[in-house]
């Protein structure tokens, strides 16, 4: 009998990572995102230039003058400097909004899912209430009324996007709560708090991680939308603001709108690829393929 290799058991996360590694689009997403984040954080070291400075004639086409490879905007400001400094606020707002969404969403969702009864009923009515509000419209009202700054935008996006996460968390909690290992934990005397944090939440994490990644994408698009409408923080250079500011000259110069649009697209595209990759990796059904 040939010695049969022992049938080594893999932890689900390890197996998910192995599945994720084999998923080409997801890896492409990771590469793109890392490039963008690095460019945003360290770009300004290598490429000096204040995005607000009028440095050249307006609407200089890309690739004409060596110092300004991507050309200039309607005021004659360097687009490369704009893209590099614009990335920071866009990503920051995206991440902050996603964080706020996850915190509110998970807290309310877990409480509703775990305790059930009137708690669940009340929280779900609140969730539905926020879901009825058209997100962008409500965010616009919030941002205009409380004067646009990065934090008001992040908060506004968070306030309108948490219902989805809350619903997801609640569904996961309802499902996991019934499983034996939770009853087992309860049997050995674990208190509710411990069960929520240590037992149920870790198992509910996979779909939540996926949703968190996708929320970052949604938040970035949201911020871009608000800035495009002119409701972004006018004194902070962000990609959406660049598009909104140059939009009136689109017929004269297509690049000041196209490059920031491309930057937003690449970031959200990368984030979504990663999100999909995580989703397939964590999804047991797809694993046998």
């Amino acid at each position, binding site marked *: 009998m040939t010695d049969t290799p022992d049938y080594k058991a893999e932890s689900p996360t390890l197996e998910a990572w192995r599945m994720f590694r084999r998923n080409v*689009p997801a890896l492409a997403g990771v590469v793109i995102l890392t490039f963008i984040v690095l460019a945003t954080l360290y770009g300004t070291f290598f490429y000096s230039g204040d995005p607000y400075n009028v440095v050249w004639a307006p609407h200089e086409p890309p690739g004409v003058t060596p110092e300004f490879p991507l050309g200039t905007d309607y005021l004659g400001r360097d687009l490369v400097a704009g893209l590099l400094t614009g990335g920071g606020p866009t990503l920051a707002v995206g991440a902050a909004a996603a964080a706020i969404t996850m915190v509110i969403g998970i807290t309310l969702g877990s409480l509703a899912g775990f305790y059930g009864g009137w708690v669940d009923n009340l929280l779900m009515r609140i969730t*539905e*209430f926020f*879901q*009825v*509000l*058209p*997100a*962008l*419209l*409500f965010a*616009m*009202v*919030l941002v*205009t*009324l*409380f*004067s646009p700054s990065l934090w008001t935008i992040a908060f506004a996006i968070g306030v309108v996007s948490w219902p989805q996460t809350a619903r997801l968390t609640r569904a996961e909690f309802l499902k996991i709560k019934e499983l034996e290992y939770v009853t087992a934990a309860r049997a050995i005397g674990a208190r509710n708090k411990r069960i929520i944090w240590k037992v149920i939440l870790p198992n509910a994490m996979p779909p939540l991680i996926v949703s968190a990644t996708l929320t970052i*994408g949604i938040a970035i*698009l949201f911020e*871009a*939308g608000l800035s*495009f*409408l*002119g*409701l972004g923080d006018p004194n902070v250079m962000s990609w*959406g603001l660049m*598009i909104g500011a140059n*939009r009136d000259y*689109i*017929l004269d110069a*297509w690049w000041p*709108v*196209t490059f920031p*649009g491309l930057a*937003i*697209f*690449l970031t*959200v*595209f990368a*984030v*979504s*690829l990663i999100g*999909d990759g995580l989703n397939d990796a964590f999804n047991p*059904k*797809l694993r046998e*393929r």
Partner: protein
Amino acid sequence: MSSSFLLRRVGYGLVLMLGVVVLNFLLIRLAPGDPATVIAGEMGGATEEMLESIREEYGLNKPLIVQLGIYVGNVLRGNMGESFFFNQPVASLIAQRIGPTILLVITAQILSILIGVFLGVIAARKPNGVMSGFVSVFATIGYAVPVFWTGIMLIILFASVFPFFPAEGMQSVRLRGADVFTKTLDIAHHLVLPAFTLAIIYLAQYARLSRASMLEVLGSDYIRTARAKGAAEKTVLFKHALRNAALPILTVAGLQFGNLISGALLVETVFNWPGMGRLAFDSILRRDYPTIMGVLFFASAMVVIANILTDISYRWADPRLRGKS
């Protein structure tokens, strides 16, 4: 369909909408900046007495709760108050614009569901095939591109460089007097670009969702039974499988409605589409609070109605739920 379920659902919807009205009223009143200066500002050359007369006229100096009471009372009687900017009742302003928004949103929804589900089903046939990879990547592209950027690019491409489609608006004013058929054709001609721009975003969600839902359904026993009966693969896919896979898609279509309205706001602004979204945007820039409130109210009403319709159609579509309250 038990009517008690319907009544409860509609009643609950009304409570939600009332909540929206109260929340927005309070929110706007709490915000900094005095609406009177805005109204006066618009007219230029305001004196203190003019500001005072405006406050009086718009009831701005009464205590908050009283103002709220008056406002809710009016809303229940269908009077959404006067627009600060347009000097017209808000209700008539919105009435002119609710049609175009619904037309845009419904067309975009249908387009994204049809194309999305079709792509999803194709992808589901061979989960690891090339087509499946293409669908998910293409779908993600559609989802990741900022909608206003797509809109602008489409205008440049298909209205300026290749002038096949009009660059703005819902109908050409020249054809106002024309017969119904030409006018419908003209509106459809204006509708193509905006509807497609709005549809692209949700195409991705539907493609991904229908792919996952189809994969799950294709693994079930009744599909094997259908094949064992000798049914053609096309029948198995589009009749047996899709009919079941459609149920979760239906739910998402309902939930998606709120996002569609947000998306519509951006598309309407870019394409100058005379809908509620653009009215809301302009009103926000003009601090025209009654109109903002009006649009928020009607937008949430549309979402509530959409949710109720989804619930009803879901219960009708799934025999297992039919009849149960």
